[in-house]
């Protein structure tokens, strides 16, 4: 059984007991434990079920590479699925539950897959479940979906109780990984004066060197770590972060740091995670190495663990995963585990070394009384929910001639692979190291930065060297190289001297035993979580899925939540062997960020709830909100769709506003319309290019409606232009158009006509603008007093500066409703006061505010087009009968040439008309008119479509506009619009002006 030892445990505080629950069972651990170490201390060997076969699974690693021991953590608004126990710090009250089983971890129905595993090899689902067709969607897939899926989904209405944030940091050198290599590299870089940031994913500095032993400059490793950290802490140019993982390396020196601020103190004040967006001139990846499992039958039984992990559990947390342990290895390092265990009082029954000979560590082991068997291998581990015994065979064989030994844990070591993920994310290349049988960074092909030079340097075991001495030497060089790359002079200096017991060379062992028969290969796991075995990779190769990417995708090797940290190289080697190719020729799959999964919350950062996206507000926003506004998002703005009174529906409110504005007085908050000042000696010439109409000839004091097209000919905006003085114009844009059109103007001025003397400024928000509309519009303004707003003093399509009701203002006599109408602009800071004054003064004239829907109906009654309704990016002004607004005199304007192309001048283009339903009903939004027959693809021929359709309370019937083929030539014709409701709507083609055809009302 796994249990807490009486001694050891450098990271735990035995004076601080912590209580937690696993699957409802209360357990005890210590402060400093990980959830994994605490579970082991409570003899919880089995912690989950695998993805496909639902096999019992235990803890196999001690860090980020753990594939098996994932749990659902927390509850309610803090529940999180798939949390890795090995990287979860234990805290009091922690609640964890195991995953992917039903009804319970011990008794899981899904395990039936295990019993028929032979019938479910890789890719079996591509070959089966094909017939009968409807069964995939309705039978097979639901079963597969339910049995896959790993962690429990959070409740559908869950709202995350925590907050998240981002932080931008700029450094010369970012060092990722706080082991001895990272510490040393950071120190060297920092001493050059470079601004250094050092981040470490765990809660502790030093990495695994303190566990592995040895000395640095004659002192224990722990002491070196302590000293270096305090040296770094004392330097102003160094930032140190624990619990901050280097998640990804991106172009131009961008790196993501994923800081888990309060995962170990849930509910604490402040954000839970912080996503660091770090810009570094150079990045040092001191990310260490990960031990590889050995591929033998039953290597997935709970109790089989990486040798280094077993050592970690003993040394760091004072926990042993077993009391009678067998060690299997192809290298000397695993002997350290045996020695550590033995010294901690654990029985080490055998060391099975696949090699024929080992180094001095073997002598030390033997000296402690441990039996070492050279050339031996594990044929099979027996046991279901925990290890019971091991069958031993010769490594060179098929797995016969077994001796069986009872034990309760197995430590395995297949050698070490540098963590090259962060080196590789942004294009760093790898080379195959034959001696250590691993891929390591190729220093000649690093990721390239903005200047074309390499910007990532690997350091320590992440770069290949595995012994303490080599690691420190390498880190010294890496730190100096990074500082130099960042433009600093680093002193070469001498690396600290690391000393450990010398090791004999490892020997690559990709399968144990070397010629294992198929029954064993079918039980030799490569990818523990996704249940990919040696036989699966061999099957993929046999079936022609020869590219490493094909194999990965066909078998799902390396696609689990650990992203193949343990399985990739082993799988690759099996593939290479199957193809009879060299490993480096087969190559690796692509390493993609993040290094380990990061929370969606952290990625989203602060952008949630009220600050998810900006809501732009006019000065009268709060008044609208208080006054029943039913809001409509328009770009980033919100505009009142209608002001709904108690007892009214939205539709009622719209009809009331429509009638009142035509009959009495309506107020519209028009502040969102864009206002651009265009000034300069060449401003007239410039606006003549921007607009289809002539703006240079506009007289000072007057207004003109203008159309803007893209260079591709299509309408992009419209609005009223006012000439302010000899060289100044004010251009109104649509709501949400201000920034776009401002940018559009600047683009042409800066990149095409940069010699034209024109300045543009966006003054949209300087003003609150109110449309005062209706037969009583003049009366209310006259009541407020000030400027002469009479027909004579302020005629239609003119503007004046002055005062109304004591407010400085600019009044435009323009109308988008066909009514007598003024748009009055006052300084934004007085917008609300001005609005209040109008509401107060307007009482006797029946004033009511109106919203965007009323605005739309009023303009539709008049046949005025709306950008975004009548236009959709494919419509040219000619389609809309706006020839009058297209200057014939001008040689050039944006869009003119485009509008000469054959398809633009095609007489068959659909043209704007009015549409009146025969029965007075309202045409459906977006309905299409049909012609005869079908086209070559069997689609109904269409001859037109509805662009705007409303119920007009003033006319008591539905009105619409639409684009119809040859429309203007077909006045009076009735055409048919099939609705999606099955009805056919019949509408007569009419003039688009439905109300006050002679325009008498606006010009009074």
């Amino acid at each position, binding site marked *: 059984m796994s249990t807490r030892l009486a001694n050891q445990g450098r990271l735990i505080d035995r004076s601080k007991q912590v209580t937690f629950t696993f699957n409802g069972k209360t357990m005890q651990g210590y402060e400093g434990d990980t959830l994994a170490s605490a579970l082991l201390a409570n003899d919880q060997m089995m912690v989950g079920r695998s993805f496909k076969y639902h096999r019992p699974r235990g803890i196999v690693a001690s860090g980020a590479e753990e594939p098996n021991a994932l749990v659902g953590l927390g509850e309610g608004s803090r529940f999180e699925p798939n949390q890795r126990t090995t990287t979860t710090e234990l805290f009091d009250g922690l609640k964890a539950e195991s995953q992917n089983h039903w009804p319970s971890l011990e008794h899981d129905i899904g395990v039936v897959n295990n019993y028929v595993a032979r019938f479910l090899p890789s890719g079996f689902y591509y070959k089966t479940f094909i017939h009968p067709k409807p069964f995939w969607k309705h039978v097979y897939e639901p079963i597969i979906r339910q049995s896959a899926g790993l962690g429990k989904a959070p409740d559908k209405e869950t709202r995350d109780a925590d907050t998240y944030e981002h932080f931008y940091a700029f450094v010369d050198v970012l060092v990722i990984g706080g082991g001895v290599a990272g510490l040393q590299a950071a120190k060297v870089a920092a001493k050059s004066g470079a601004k250094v940031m050092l981040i470490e994913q765990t809660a502790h500095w030093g990495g695994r060197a303190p566990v592995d032993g040895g000395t640095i400059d004659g002192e224990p490793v722990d002491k070196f770590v302590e000293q270096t950290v305090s040296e770094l802490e004392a330097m102003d140019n160094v930032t140190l972060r624990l619990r901050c993982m280097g998640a990804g390396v991106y172009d131009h020196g961008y790196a993501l740091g994923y800081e888990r601020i309060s995962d170990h103190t849930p509910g604490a004040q402040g954000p839970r995670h912080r996503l660091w967006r770090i810009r570094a001139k150079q990045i040092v990846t001191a990310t260490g190495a990960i031990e590889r499992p050995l591929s033998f039958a039953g290597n997935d039984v709970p109790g089989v663990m990486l040798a280094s992990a077993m050592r970690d559990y003993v040394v760091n947390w004072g926990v042993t995963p077993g009391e009678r342990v067998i060690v299997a290895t192809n290298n000397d390092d695993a002997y350290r585990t045996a020695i550590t265990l033995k010294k901690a009082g654990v029985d080490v029954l055998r060391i099975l070394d696949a090699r024929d000979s080992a180094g001095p560590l073997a002598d030390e082991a033997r000296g402690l009384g441990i039996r070492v068997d050279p050339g031996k291998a594990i044929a099979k581990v027996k046991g279901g929910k925990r290890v019971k015994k091991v069958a031993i065979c010769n490594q060179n064989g098929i797995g016969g001639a077994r001796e069986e030994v009872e034990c309760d844990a197995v430590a395995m070591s297949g050698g070490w692979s540098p963590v090259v993920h962060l080196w590789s994310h942004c294009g760093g290349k790898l080379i195959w190291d034959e001696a250590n049988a691993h891929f390591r960074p190729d220093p000649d092909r690093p990721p*390239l930065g903005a200047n*074309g030079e390499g910007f990532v340097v690997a350091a320590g075991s992440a770069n290949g060297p595995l012994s303490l001495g080599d690691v420190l030497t390498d880190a010294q060089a890496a730190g100096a190289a990074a500082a130099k790359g960042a433009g600093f002079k680093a002193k070469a200096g001498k690396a600290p001297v690391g000393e450990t017991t010398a090791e004999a060379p490892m020997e690559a062992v990709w399968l144990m035993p070397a010629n294992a028969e198929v029954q064993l290969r079918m039980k030799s796991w490569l990818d523990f979580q996704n249940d990919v075995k040696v036989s699966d990779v061999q099957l993929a190769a046999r079936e022609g899925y020869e590219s490493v990417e094909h194999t990965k995708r066909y078998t799902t090797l390396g696609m689990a939540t650990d992203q193949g940290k343990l399985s990739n190289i082993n799988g690759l080697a099996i593939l290479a062997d199957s193809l009879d190719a060299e490993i480096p020729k087969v190559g690796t799959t692509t390493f993609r960020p993040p290094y380990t999964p990061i929370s969606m919350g952290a990625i989203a950062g602060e952008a949630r709830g009220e600050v998810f996206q900006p809501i732009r507000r006019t000065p009268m926003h709060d008044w609208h909100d208080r006054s029943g506004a039913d809001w409509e998002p328009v770009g980033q703005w919100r505009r009142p769709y209608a002001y709904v009174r108690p007892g009214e529906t939205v539709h009622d409110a719209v009809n009331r506003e429509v009638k009142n504005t035509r009959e009495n007085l309506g107020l519209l908050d028009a502040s969102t319309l864009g206002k651009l000042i265009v000034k300069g000696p060449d401003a007239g010439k410039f606006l003549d290019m921007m607009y289809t109409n002539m703006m240079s000839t506009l007289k000072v004091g007057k207004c003109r409606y203008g159309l803007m097209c893209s260079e591709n000919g299509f309408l992009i905006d419209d609005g009223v232009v006012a000439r302010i003085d000899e060289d100044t114009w004010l251009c109104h844009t649509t709501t949400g158009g201000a920034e776009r059109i401002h940018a559009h103007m*600047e*683009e042409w001025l800066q*990149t095409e006509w940069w010699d034209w003397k024109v300045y543009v400024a966006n003054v949209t928000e300087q003003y609150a603008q109110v449309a005062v509309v209706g037969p009583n519009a003049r009366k209310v303004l006259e009541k407020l007093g000030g400027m002469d707003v009479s027909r004579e003093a302020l005629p239609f399509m003119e503007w004046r500066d002055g005062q109304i009701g004591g407010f400085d203002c600019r009044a435009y006599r323009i109308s988008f409703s066909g009514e007598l109408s003024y748009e009055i602009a006052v300084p934004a800071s007085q917008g609300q006061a001005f609005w209040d004054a109008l509401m107060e003064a307007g009482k006797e004239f029946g004033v009511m505010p109106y919203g965007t829907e009323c605005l739309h109906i009023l303009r539709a009654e008049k046949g005025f087009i709306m950008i975004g309704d009548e236009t959709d990016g494919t419509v040219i002004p000619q389609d809309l009968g706006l020839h009058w607004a297209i200057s014939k005199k001008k040689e050039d304007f944006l869009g003119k040439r485009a509008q000469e192309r054959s398809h633009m001048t095609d007489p068959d283009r659909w043209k704007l008309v009015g549409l009146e339903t025969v029965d007075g009903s309202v045409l459906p939004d977006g309905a299409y008119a049909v012609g005869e027959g079908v086209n070559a693809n069997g689609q109904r021929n269409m001859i037109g479509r509805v662009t705007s359709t409303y119920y007009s309370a003033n006319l008591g019937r539905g009105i619409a506009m639409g684009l119809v083929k040859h429309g203007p030539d077909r006045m009076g014709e009735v055409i048919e619009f099939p609705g999606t409701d099955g009805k056919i709507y019949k509408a007569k083609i009419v003039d688009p002006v439905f109300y006050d055809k002679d325009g008498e009302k606006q010009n009074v």
Partner: protein
Amino acid sequence: MLILNCPYCGVDAEETELTAGGEAHIKRHGPGSSDDEFHDYLFMRENPKGVHFERWRHSNGCGKWFHAARCTATLEVFGTYSAQTTEPPKEIREAISAKRPGWKWREFE
């Protein structure tokens, strides 16, 4: 996540401050141009895997348009320069030649 130096305000701006504006040094063709000329002006774009000249706007910054010479295969930036030019300036072309001997882009090399 690119960083480009805005030649107008001198900021090393990261991509989120910038707006990409497509290929640089395109000659406008208006009324009077042939269908082919107009088509190429609007739609035909160099799409090189390698050296490219393009327009950017420092939109969340000084608001100015500028040009950048960049490699589309490695994202290396050879330099940024004024938008008020009709062709890549000599020093930019030389900087590219130093890094990518034999490069070619449209009529420039």
